[in-house]
């Protein structure tokens, strides 16, 4: 029994569900996907994973090597797609002790901006007036 045979990015799980037909079946009865798996699918479709592809992720991981980030941090960045320093802050562990200065953080954010597509705009729920125009809204 191998508890950890490899970590998966959110994209890879979404891709697995899509390959079994999650996105095609609007009735949700025909595709061989259970209700609990659809809940995971619904969650992932609201994260940056739904605009990513395998090439994007591999490319990004390769380019990240320059910044000497931990694997867990790269995974986290891919899943969350931070768009500003303040969003990147909770992901990096002890950046100042590892020599990751402000310039490096800006470099990481530029790489994110360039390589990872922006996340979907999550629809406002109910009577919430604040429609979030995320950085996904490129004018």
């Amino acid at each position, binding site marked *: 029994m191998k508890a950890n045979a490899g*970590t998966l990015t959110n994209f890879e*799980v979404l891709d697995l569900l899509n390959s079994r037909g999650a996105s095609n079946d609007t009735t949700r009865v025909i595709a061989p996907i259970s209700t609990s798996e659809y809940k995971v699918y619904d969650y992932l479709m609201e994260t940056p994973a739904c605009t990513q592809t395998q090439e994007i992720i591999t490319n990004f991981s390769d380019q990240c090597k320059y910044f000497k980030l931990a694997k867990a941090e790269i995974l986290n960045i891919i899943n969350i797609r931070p768009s500003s320093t303040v969003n990147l*802050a909770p992901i990096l562990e002890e950046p100042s002790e590892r020599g990751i200065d402000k310039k490096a953080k800006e470099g990481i954010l530029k790489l994110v901006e360039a390589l990872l597509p922006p996340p979907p705009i999550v629809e406002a729920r109910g009577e919430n007036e604040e429609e979030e125009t995320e950085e996904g809204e490129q004018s």
Partner: protein
Amino acid sequence: MFCLSELEDTVRVPPSDLNLPLEVAIKKALQKLFLDKVLSIGLCVSIYGIKSIEGGFVLPGDGAATYKVVFRIVVFRPFVGEVIAAKFKESDSNGLRLTLGFFEDVYVPAPLIPTPNRCEPDPYNRNQMRWVWKYGDDEFIIDDSCQQIKFRVENISYPPVPTERAEDAKPFAPMVVTGTIDDDGLGPVSWWEACAPISDDED
């Protein structure tokens, strides 16, 4: 937050499924056994694939065929330090409860909510308390108008199944993720969108 785990288990395929192709029947039995269940390694989300199947013996007195299967599953098991986006579910005097849709037992206890804060009875919902963060002159309310709340995983625990429970106790949660929202970039996403790029306090 997801990883692959390889397991070996003995699977019983009921006689009604024996007309199906073997892999389909075994996958069906595996799904029934593992899907949406919490194991010691986390919450099982999906069957990734079957690596090998052995056996197929029919034990005496049983119409079903028993197989020894090696397979891989996708498990939800966040690592400590991971930042995850969730939605608000409910709050009480102990803290917040957040949900991911497929997993609803994420708790942010009161000490991990940014201070200064206060807890007040929710004017919209009589049974709930709501938490308010006071930053400078502004007050930020945490309730279900927050679109997305980001938290960082502090701990994952697997409480043992209780033998006795009070009548009105919450349904037992076999896997509990404890998170914090007390850091830059954490908490409701709307808190940070209003701010211009903040200079890092850590530097």
